[in-house]
């Protein structure tokens, strides 16, 4: 792959010690780590005894000369019961290489910031037990998105697609506050949209989707699921539902889904994405048949 990196501007200004390319403290640390850390035999034994976990982490940084060509770094992290992939990369960052970069926040599968490509599949770092993975555990940034640095990918396109489906409740008939009326939803209807409302915008589904990889305009599973949540909500009026279906039934909307189920398989919140997309396809066809 041609990476055609230009020299970052900052590298030309020697005043900035962080940016002096090969001499940066970061790289000195890296070198020390590589020389000092790995005593292969000892590591192997520790791993066999289940005391450490071997992780291979994707590294890339356009601002450091050594890392402009992506590579994998090996870390041997002391294992603890209940340790997740996120725990392991956090340990590696805190103890071995503070330049290791990735997003995370809640550590309990609610914020959706730490979806990685782990051993060839999209997973939430904080929800994936190391004990369930084969070693060495290969940790990469999400495929089909540009890598900004290490495990951090550019999520802009994903967010654009999410916003394209107008992911907010719309209703002209909101009862006047002075009437003290509530906008009730039946328990059945709540149940219907329950799963779709669990999305945490992690982007795992979009990254796993073959079609989204090829067709940049495809809305993608998460956005369609988001639209499902509102389209199926009875509290929105019929006209708004139609408006939503019109967005979804464009050429690059629901029809691009090829029912490969890859999104459904990777979604950390177990949302039946394919099922929702299929239901919307049928809704769109039904709606159009009605107006023939």
């Amino acid at each position, binding site marked *: *792959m041609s990476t055609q990196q230009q020299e970052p501007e900052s590298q030309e200004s020697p005043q900035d010690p962080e940016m002096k390319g090969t001499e940066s403290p970061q790289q000195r640390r890296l070198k020390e780590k590589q020389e000092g850390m790995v005593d292969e035999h000892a590591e192997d034994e520790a791993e066999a005894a289940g005391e450490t976990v071997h992780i291979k982490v994707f590294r890339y940084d*356009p*601002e450091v000369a050594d890392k402009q060509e992506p590579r994998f770094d090996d870390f041997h992290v002391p294992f603890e019961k209940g340790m997740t992939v996120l725990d392991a990369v956090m340990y590696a960052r805190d103890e071995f290489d503070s330049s290791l970069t990735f997003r995370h926040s809640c550590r309990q599968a609610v914020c959706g910031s730490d979806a990685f490509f782990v051993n060839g599949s999209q997973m939430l770092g904080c929800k994936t037990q190391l004990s369930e993975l084969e070693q060495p555990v290969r940790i990469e940034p999400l*495929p089909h998105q540009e890598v900004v640095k290490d495990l951090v990918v*550019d999520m802009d396109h994903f967010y654009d697609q999410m916003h394209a489906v107008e992911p907010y409740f719309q209703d002209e008939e909101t009862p006047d506050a002075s009437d003290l009326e509530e906008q009730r939803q039946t328990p059945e209807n709540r149940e219907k949209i329950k799963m779709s409302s669990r999305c945490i915008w992690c982007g795992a589904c979009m990254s796993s989707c073959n079609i989204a990889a090829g067709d940049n305009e495809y809305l993608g599973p998460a956005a369609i699921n988001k639209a499902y949540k509102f389209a199926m909500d009875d509290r929105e009026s019929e006209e708004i539902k139609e408006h939503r279906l019109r967005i979804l039934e464009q050429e690059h909307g629901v029809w691009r889904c*090829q029912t*490969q*189920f890859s999104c459904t*398989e990777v979604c950390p919140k177990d949302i039946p994405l394919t099922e929702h997309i299929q239901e919307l396809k049928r809704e769109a066809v039904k709606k159009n048949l009605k107006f023939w």
Partner: protein
Amino acid sequence: MSQSYNRGLIEDFGRWKEFSAGMWAWIFHKFTGWMLIGYLFTHIAVLSSAIAAADGQTMMLAGEQVDAYTGTLQGLESLFIVRVLEVGLLAVAVFHILNGVRLLMVDLGVGLTAQDKSFYASLVLTGVITVASVPTFMAGVGL
């Protein structure tokens, strides 16, 4: 974003081993569909010899003078390689039909949780039907 790294297509093609059932089904359905439409064009071309036959054109087949249509079709059928290709075509068509039924069910929202099992079932059934048809397809042709 000042700079970013695009890992390119390599990540799709290098990782075929990590494909799951539904993704394989998609690839196979694609492949068989393209074979079938390709065959349909060839098929109509071959059958077009009927136009010549209706015009009274004839040709030689195994020392006999026959009409152009019969001659073309039977001539093709007497070739071993054509028979092998026909078995291949049957396999392709059977898989496309069975997986097509699976896809139609998926479209109707039936049995979504068994989508991987129904793909494996399509594969196995295709194999069985193809093997069972070999005697019929190969009847009366020598190597």
